[in-house]
């Protein structure tokens, strides 16, 4: 349990607000953060804050959710192509599965991902919703 809590805690910046890395050599944007750049294999670089804007690359509806996620089923999981390049897997929110389309502009929001039962921690992290235009 303690190991589990520490793991979630270390992931806070990455999970709450899409903080990844920028490769100092080829300037590729990297998410999630890792030791070496997947593009040029040089050591990965300083923190990079993604804009959170992207589009749906592919998607699938989940009716039988894994343990800890049942309370939010049914929901849609998508591969999202971020504006800065990387593809990431995330839940979509504030949208019905039937309304999701490939290429749909989406934006990152931070929502409840799961709850560890009634007495455990509430886990927050990024999801994507249909892009809401500014004023």
């Amino acid at each position, binding site marked *: 349990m303690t190991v589990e809590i520490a793991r979630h805690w270390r992931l*806070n*910046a990455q999970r*709450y*607000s899409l903080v990844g890395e920028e490769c100092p050599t080829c300037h590729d944007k990297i998410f999630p953060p890792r030791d070496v750049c997947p593009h040029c294999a040089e050591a990965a670089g300083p923190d990079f*804050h993604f804009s959170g804007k992207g589009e749906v690359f592919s998607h699938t509806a989940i009716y039988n959710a894994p343990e800890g996620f049942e*309370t*939010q089923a049914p929901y849609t999981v998508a591969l999202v192509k971020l504006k800065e390049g990387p593809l990431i897997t995330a839940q979509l*929110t*504030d949208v019905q599965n039937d309304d999701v389309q490939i290429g749909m502009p989406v934006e990152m*929001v*931070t*929502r*409840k*991902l799961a709850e560890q039962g009634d007495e455990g921690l*509430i886990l*927050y992290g990024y*999801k994507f919703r249909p892009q*809401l*235009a*500014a*004023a």
Partner: protein
Amino acid sequence: MAIMKPIKPVGIVGYCSYIPRYRIPAKAISQVWTDGKGGTPITEKAVAGLDEDTVTIALEAARNALLRAQINPQRIGAVWVGSESHPYAVKPTSTIVAEAIGAVPHTQAGDWEFACKAGTEAMQAGIGFVASGMQRYVLAVGADTAQGRPGDALEYTAASGGAACLIGPAAESIATFEATFSFVTDTPDFWRRPHAHYPSHGQRFTGEPAYFEHVLSAAKTIMSELGRTPKDYQHVILHQPNAKFPRRAAKMLGFEKAQWETGLLSPVVGNTYSGAAMLGLTAALDIARPGDRILCVSFGSGAGSDAFSLLVSDGIEGVARRAPTTQAYISRRREIDYARYARYRGKLLLA
């Protein structure tokens, strides 16, 4: 009468609201409990989705307030969230919000409680923090996912939403605080014990001795101490537990419809508790012009009111369009039925 004025001028440098997209019409609730007979206190209310709570509501409002202010989050010296529906009994909402907006670790953080006026209290404290020079920027948020007992009168109005106000030096502000004033008494109009899921209320006791006494006293005092009358204000926002109370109170104070309609959101959003008065303020700021005056008065049961007199500055030009307006959140709307509402708000016990 001690109205409060900062020694150094202080204002709002960024703001935004957040309203979840789900709406349950009041008629859908009355059909379940009264066969749809009798009036309803509002048209519809905003309902948080399954993955939303006070943290996520406060966070989106805070992020957008920062977009409008265009400042580095590391310069925020305090993150304060007022609510009566903090997700944890012990573990602050404010630290999660501070972490997610990038304000940690060199910041103050804290959760505030005072029924529906927890957010405006944080604003008042923020004015003091900034005016004293202790911090340059303070983020004050009011957010709630309010619950009403099924079948109770409050079920029609208890809604979800919130708003954030980034407070800072007047020179960088979109609106400056001319003064603030609080009026507080021990009044048993509404309460919830720690073990209780739903609140209790003093039925008709909630009107005259609670809402009207505090809201009217706070509004009258701040205006008279500043030498102002309702004519000096383009916008007035009063706490809005329903559609009727704020309209009646505004009329009693001598305001007209054109002054209250921009900030009166309860008919289509419901009572967002700690978010309510601040939400109305964001709607007014979205359309305010330099030189406009805004009067904003919150109310929290138990009971008290915080009043603010604001003067809109030139800095407001172009700021609204940097983030979604409150009206944009209101028109992002998906209607749900009572069954879905019961699931979203945890009113179904499956075990």
